[in-house]
Each structure stands twice: as structure tokens, then as C-alpha cells.
């Protein structure tokens, strides 16, 4: 019987393509720790995100490829993940944060915070280390959605984020108590955003989501100028007016060269709880059409579903509270599509830095 060697195994595996990164899994460095003992082959595939949408596909193809080598009897594959870091300079306390992703919208009331909270929890359910910063100074609602309110603790001169449902989070709402509004001019908002990025003990995170205020204001500018974002997600409703305004947020992101990771259409349709009839209250497909036109990935459509609202008010995002329900599944799929887009953006993005050289 021919002896199986590591190059044989790698050659077989180099036929397996990652459909998102458009390269084979060997040259991407995914294959680790190849061990061969007679007819038994074992190795590890280390993906760029635990929320990988093609995890099962890659495992199956890898197994089939290696099995096709003469003499191989058993194949055992360990699927792991290591989220790669977007190249960026910045504050020391953010050094453990691998990707910062902004969640924006053109106008208020599109359900951006609900989407952000559910996505953050969905990523955590897939095994990622996730943070969520509520930077919406006008209507900080993440503490309600995550079910934890009250004051934050300060330890070692760092604000300690709260933790709920596997997600570390911090909210601008914690700077004011109860029903007190945050009445801030630009410089205050600027300082608060900076502080939430640099003076919070975020620790090691694979993804930090930043829930932006609606529109394009001080908070957005501070964010894009303080850190190099891995990218931004735009949440829109199907109505035209929502979309026109979302375009403005989109343009701002483009002008500041933030990768647009995709558009999510929220309140896309309503499924009747009695007869299951799908009613498209605000029209349908506006966001998908716009994303096609602009060449931006369309990440998915979220239905208007009373359970989303009920679970949000109860402080447990629907993706966890009603895991397995249609609404929860929609969120899980969007999270995985987004994870793929973040991996692609990180894979393609170059590092920019100023080199000093003597004259």
C-alpha cells in the first residue's frame, strides 16, 4: 500500500475553494496540524469566523478530497476558527478588538438597534467574542433590548462593560440616568464616543458592533476618524423615503472609505399570525434592488413579527429568546452572511501607515 504523505494531503485539500475569499483553503492558511497514521488522516481547518456560512460545505469537500487519495481509510477534521484582525491603528485598549463594525441607518425608527442587538447575540451564539457599543445619543435603547440597565462600574480607571446573553455592551444611555436626555453639543458627543472606544475594558473581542445614531452627524465623523472600521452595515426599511435617506449614510461611508459590508431590509414583510399570509405593508424589495444597483451585498430581509418586538421589550433578543423560530433563523442567516463579508473585507484591506524616513 502506498504511504500517504503530508504533501499528498495538502495537494488534495488545495482543490477545496473558499467561495467567499475566492482562494483554496491551503493557500489561505486554513489547514493546520496535519497528522497521518497509516490510513488515518487528521487535520484542522481554521476558518476566519465561527459564524462561517460555508463551514459544512468546506468540511464536506475537504473530507471528500482527502478520501479520494489512495490508501486513506478514515478522515477526521476539526473545525475551528480564528477571527483575523482588521489592520488599524488606534487606542491601546482597542488592541484586543479584531473588527469594529458600524451599524447605521439614514433615519430613525427603522429598527437599527433591534437589528444590532440581535446580530450581536447571533454572532455570540456562533461562538464569537462580541461587544456592542450603543452610540445612539438620541435614543440609546440597547440597555432595554439587552435587559440590563443601571450604572456601570469603573475599575482600574476603565469603565467595565455590562454583559448579557454572551455579549459585552456599553451604552451612551449609561451617561444619563433614567429618563434624562443627553443634551450634548458636538464636542461632548465626540468626547463620549472616544471615551466609549478607549476607556472601556473591552478586552479580547472578535467583533465590536457600534450602533450609530440615525443619519450622518458628529458621532459618525468621530467614529470614522478615530478608528479604521472593518466596515459598516446599513439598515433600511422598504419604503423609498427610508432608502433615499439611507443612501446619504451610504455616501458618507464611501467618502470616508468605510467598506459597506451590506444592506439589511428590516420590517420587510408581515406574516399573518392567523393564516400565514405574507403581506408587504411598505412595499418590498427596495433595499435589494438598490444594493444590486450599487454593487453592495444584500444581507437579508427581516419580517415584521410581533415576537421580535415582544422579546426586545423583555430584554432578550428574539434570536436567543425564540431560537429556532422563523424570525430567529432570519437573524442567524444574516449574521453568517455578514460574518462572511467581514472576513472578505479584512482579507482584502491593506494596511496604511505613514513611514518616516530621514531626508
Amino acid at each position: 500500500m502506498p504511504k500517504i504523505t503530508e504533501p499528498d494531503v495538502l495537494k488534495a485539500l488545495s482543490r477545496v475553494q473558499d467561495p467567499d475569499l475566492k482562494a483554496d483553503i491551503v493557500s489561505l492558511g486554513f489547514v493546520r496540524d496535519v497528522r497521518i497514521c497509516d490510513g488515518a488522516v487528521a487535520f484542522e481547518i481554521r476558518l476566519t469566523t465561527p459564524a462561517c456560512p460555508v463551514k459544512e460545505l468546506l468540511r464536506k469537500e475537504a473530507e471528500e478530497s482527502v478520501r479520494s487519495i489512495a490508501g486513506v481509510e478514515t478522515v477526521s477534521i476539526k473545525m475551528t476558527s480564528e477571527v483575523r484582525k482588521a489592520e488599524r491603528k488606534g487606542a491601546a485598549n482597542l488592541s484586543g478588538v479584531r473588527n469594529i463594525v458600524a451599524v447605521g441607518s439614514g433615519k430613525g425608527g427603522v429598527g437599527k438597534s433591534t437589528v444590532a442587538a440581535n446580530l450581536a447575540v447571533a454572532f455570540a451564539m456562533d461562538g464569537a467574542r462580541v461587544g456592542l457599543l450603543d452610540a445612539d445619543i438620541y435614543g440609546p435603547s440597547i440597555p432595554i433590548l439587552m435587559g440590563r440597565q443601571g450604572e456601570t462600574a469603573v475599575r482600574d480607571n476603565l469603565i467595565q462593560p455590562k454583559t448579557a446573553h454572551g455579549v459585552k455592551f456599553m451604552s451612551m444611555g449609561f451617561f444619563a440616568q433614567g429618563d434624562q436626555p443627553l443634551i450634548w453639543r458636538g464636542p461632548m458627543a465626540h468626547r463620549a464616543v472616544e471615551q466609549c472606544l478607549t476607556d472601556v475594558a473591552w478586552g479580547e473581542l472578535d467583533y465590536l458592533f457600534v450602533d450609530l445614531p440615525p443619519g450622518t452627524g458628529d458621532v459618525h465623523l468621530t467614529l470614522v476618524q478615530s478608528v479604521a472600521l472593518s466596515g459598516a452595515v446599513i439598515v433600511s426599511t422598504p419604503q423609498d423615503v427610508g432608502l433615499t435617506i439611507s443612501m446619504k449614510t451610504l455616501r458618507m461611508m464611501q467618502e470616508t472609505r468605510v467598506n459597506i459590508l451590506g444592506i439589511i431590509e428590516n420590517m420587510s414583510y408581515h406574516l399573518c399570525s392567523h393564516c400565514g399570509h405574507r403581506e408587504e405593508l411598505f412595499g418590498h424589495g427596495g433595499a435589494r434592488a438598490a444594493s444590486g444597483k450599487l454593487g453592495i451585498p444584500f444581507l437579508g430581509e427581516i419580517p415584521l413579527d410581533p415576537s421580535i418586538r415582544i422579546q426586545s421589550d423583555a430584554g432578550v433578543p428574539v434570536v436567543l429568546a425564540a431560537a429556532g423560530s422563523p424570525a430567529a433563523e432570519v437573524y442567524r442567516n444574516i449574521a453568517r452572511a455578514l460574518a462572511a463579508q467581514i472576513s472578505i473585507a479584512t482579507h482584502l484591506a491593506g494596511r496604511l501607515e505613514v513611514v518616516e524616513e530621514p531626508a
Partner: protein
Amino acid sequence: MTSGVHSSQPRQIKKAGARELKILWEDGHESIYPFSHLRRSCRCAVCVDEFTGRPLLDGRGVPETLEGTGVSVVGRYALSVSFGDGHATGIYSFEHLRRICPCGCGVDRAREGDSHVE
């Protein structure tokens, strides 16, 4: 984002001593900026009237020998430059930098690609 044949995506950014900033663009062109030129091209609210676009800075008062004391990347889209005269409030978007390349290669670039985020 990128208009025409010119790229406004830097491949490499070098601060060559205190007098020059060099940017190698993705299209292979290298722009060499004396810091005095950058100082005169500053578009911050102190140097250009925010509403009328009227220049507030008299470029003639900027010495050719003006030094650059620091250059850093802003997010993914611009540079921030501090000068020997203490001025440091300008944010130079890559679009703007390509347009003001001293060799004149960016002059024909339409102003429609102009970034307003500064």
C-alpha cells in the same frame, strides 16, 4: 470614489524628513508634496470659509521652508498633518491630496468626486 484614470488610493505614504511628504498611489504615480504646499492647500475652517469657500489664509505668508512636524492616517480616507507653524486642524482626504499633486496630474480631475467630510 476614484474618478478618471487616476487613483486616489495610496499604496505607500512617506514623510521624508521635515520638508516633504511622498505618496505612492495605486496607479504607480508618486506625488511629492513640500509641506509649504500642503499648508497652503489646507481646507480646514480656519483656512477656508466654510460657507462661501473663500480662502481665509494668505498663502504668500507661508514660508517655503515650513516644516511638517507630524503626519498620521485618519480612519481609512485621509491624512492629518501638523506643521511647524503650529497649525494642525486640517484633514486632507486622499481625493484632495491627489487633486493637489504638485505635478499637476490631478488638475483635470472633476470636482464632483470632492469629499465633503473634513
